[in-house]
């Protein structure tokens, strides 16, 4: 029996500890937001947070996350309560087919957690583990930049000026 925290809730699963976390989350806990893309940790479609870090879960045995805290896209925000990155994905019309976007957003959220004001190069480095076949990269970067600390501070400033 593996016990872990999933999106803030304590959960347990009676599964082979070698089963990748991705499949336990998708098939056992029925959370389908994280995707299967390559099965080899090469594309990032399966990205979740494990104790706050972005991890490729298609190659991570569920046994390795026993006792840890796992967050999926479903735990980041919902259509009625969007995370700022999810709102930016809507604002900048980022997704095309959308299949990789859960992974992209989870990678971006982990980046902003540790580096709230990343440079363009830092965004490239943090996001280069996530493939998008539709070519949404320019928009993904723009959306991340729009919710970085600097951009939010700028927005707050202009709003204040607008009111005054």
């Amino acid at each position, binding site marked *: 029996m593996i016990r872990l925290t999933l999106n803030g809730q304590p959960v347990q699963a009676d599964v082979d500890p070698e089963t990748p976390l991705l499949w336990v989350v998708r098939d056992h806990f029925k959370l389908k937001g994280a*995707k299967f893309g390559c099965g080899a940790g090469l594309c990032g479609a399966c990205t979740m947070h494990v104790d706050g870090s972005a991890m490729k879960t298609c190659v991570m045995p569920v046994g390795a996350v026993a006792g840890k805290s796992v967050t999926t896209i479903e735990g980041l925000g919902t259509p009625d309560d969007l995370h700022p990155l999810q709102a930016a994905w809507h604002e900048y019309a980022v997704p095309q*087919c959308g299949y990789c976007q859960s992974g992209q*957003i989870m990678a971006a959220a982990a980046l902003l957690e540790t580096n709230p004001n990343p440079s363009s190069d830092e965004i490239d480095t943090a996001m280069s583990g996530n493939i998008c076949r539709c070519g949404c990269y320019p928009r993904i970067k723009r959306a991340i930049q729009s919710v970085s600390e600097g951009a939010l501070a700028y927005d707050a400033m202009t709003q204040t000026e607008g009111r005054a």
Partner: protein
Amino acid sequence: MNTVNVSRRRFLQSSTVAGGGLVIGFSLTSCSSTPAPLPMARAEGSWTPNAFLQVLPDNTIRFYTARSEMGQGVTTGLATLVGEELDVNPLDMDVRLASTHEDYVNPLFGMQGTGGSTSIRAHYTQLRQVGANTRALILEAAAKDLGVAVSSLSTDNGYVVADQARHPYADFIATAQTLTIEGDAALKPATQFKYIGQESRRVDAIAKATGTAQFGIDVDIPDLHYAVVVRAPVAGAKVRSVEASAARGMSGVTDVFEIDNGVAVVAQSFWQAKQAAAQVEVDWDSGALGRIDTETLRADYAAALNAGDGVEGPDEGDVEQALTAASTVHEAEYWAPLLAHAPMEPMNATVRIDGDRAEVWTGIQFPFAVPAIISRVADIPAENVRFHQTYLGGGFGRRGTVNHLTEAAEIAVQSAKPIQLVWTREDDIQQGPFRPASLMRIKAGVDADGNLTAWDAARAGGNISPDSYRTLLPAAFPWIGDAVAEGVAKLSEMYFEKFATDESSTEGLFEDYDHANTRVTHMTVDHDLPLTFWRSVGHSYTAFAKESMIDELAEAAGMDEVAFRLQNTRNSPRLNNVIRVAGEHMARMNPPEGHHLGFAAHHSFYTDVAEIAEVSVENGKIRVHKVTCVLDCGQAVNPDIVRAQMEGGVVYGLTAALYGGLNLERGAIKESNFHDYPMLRMDESPEIEVIIIDSGTEPTGVGEPGLPPVAPAVANAVYKATGQRLRSLPLQMA
């Protein structure tokens, strides 16, 4: 026999059935003698005026999109068309993905399919008319209910406005459903457009940013079992013997059996099925393809070009004489390799067969094929097959094929369980169907005044149409037997080998420039590789050959690359204008030291695109810094989606230009996953600027046309940077 004498696209057009062409009438099903019930959700007290719209009592406006959403933004685009005339903001609609029904045919195909960058062009008039007629009925009903004249009423985003009071459309649906429309309502002039041509977000973005958009692989039904197929390394190989006792004993495994394409392993979870599949040992009987390597393939193509006895395509004027008379003659050969599509969502389908009924869930470009395929495999009536369309996790042509569906149905029948079949990424990269490889040779002549006078172009490689007949004919004509379908496919193979070019094999190789003397020859060299459409189809390789050649010719003739193109595209005014605008833009660009600009232009899917690639080459590595894309696609219904499609086409094309290439070793594809079949990632993705020219004409394609110019634009820039003319894809420095 008639059907072999045409390209696949023409075949689809000529098989137009009821509902094809513009549907100006209202109850769309009325043109059929026994219309099937509309496959729309039932909602108590709602009004369903046609196959596309439902008005619910709470004033929800539900729109069923007939085209498949694979990222190209078609849900937003079609909702914009209907919303413009219905006067409802597309972002406020409840947009659903339609099941199968004759009212959902693509008017340009005559069947329910999405591809060829047709969707907006195909539905531009139809869906605006659907919106206008629905609004007219609501207004008429409102006038009755309120006891006022229709002329005193207006509408505003789902509300009838009467003397400053706002009444939800839903208030009038009881009366509206008693009314019939006499003639089509008038459509707005473009000057009054409120949504078309405006900046807008996407109707699917929130679902896709929150993990709530459902893809085929996300479908979950009671007792669902998962299947993985052990496949032959060499396409078309048959099972000689199977050793599966280890797999059978593994945890969760319920069934292991042979199917047409290999050995199916069924388990309670995908992971268990995949683990068990790795333990199955199969001895395969590979055919002639088992002797072919990449080098053999290319050598066979070259031998065919050298032999020269191909099939004649367009033949105008006297090419030989024009070449003799030309002051500059240049000849070159270009190579494009086999490619996989690699959509991010691996192929999958979910099938449940229950007695003589079946349900199918998958995201597919050709829904029309689903009932017939399931019916044939499961031996149940096609009308008993219920199809649930999902979002497509990338299409690119790959989801215009149906082999995964056939497999899923076979496995559901044999295992007698509800099945979700999932292809692994390795299956996806190695099994095809592929973008065909091509060897192209062009010899061209320019006169002393810089006029292109002769264009002698040849292409050697496989054709995609026979495989399309093989898979789609049984779906289009369910009453024909498998043997007949195979017979037609074989006939078409012979036909394209001996009598006529498969249009998609040479499209884009010769049409854009004004050369009076033109000869196109095609040599079919078919190694039994499974082939299909790949984003922009033939243009994906012909544009590379043509636009590289044009650059080479301009230099040989001592002319500027843009001036040469302008001078020789006068008969194609829209392309000419795009080249002019892009050329002026390039002249104003000021790249930093070490960066070089390459130019290319191409017409495809009725749209004209020119691209400028800003490139540097350092330590033998090609780096693309920026791509500027200038296009004319007529009316841009959603300009931001047009930009997104150009961005996507550029990245997809650039991935192929820099990295894309599958290699055969004794008939098997050597590459297997993203480590050896790499994709462009964010750190290599260029800045992309898109300039849309508004020519005011009706909309043309955008899903594919952004792709073809990018490879030659980069190759032309690399030449300027290094003096090396790269004529093989992917582009690699010597």
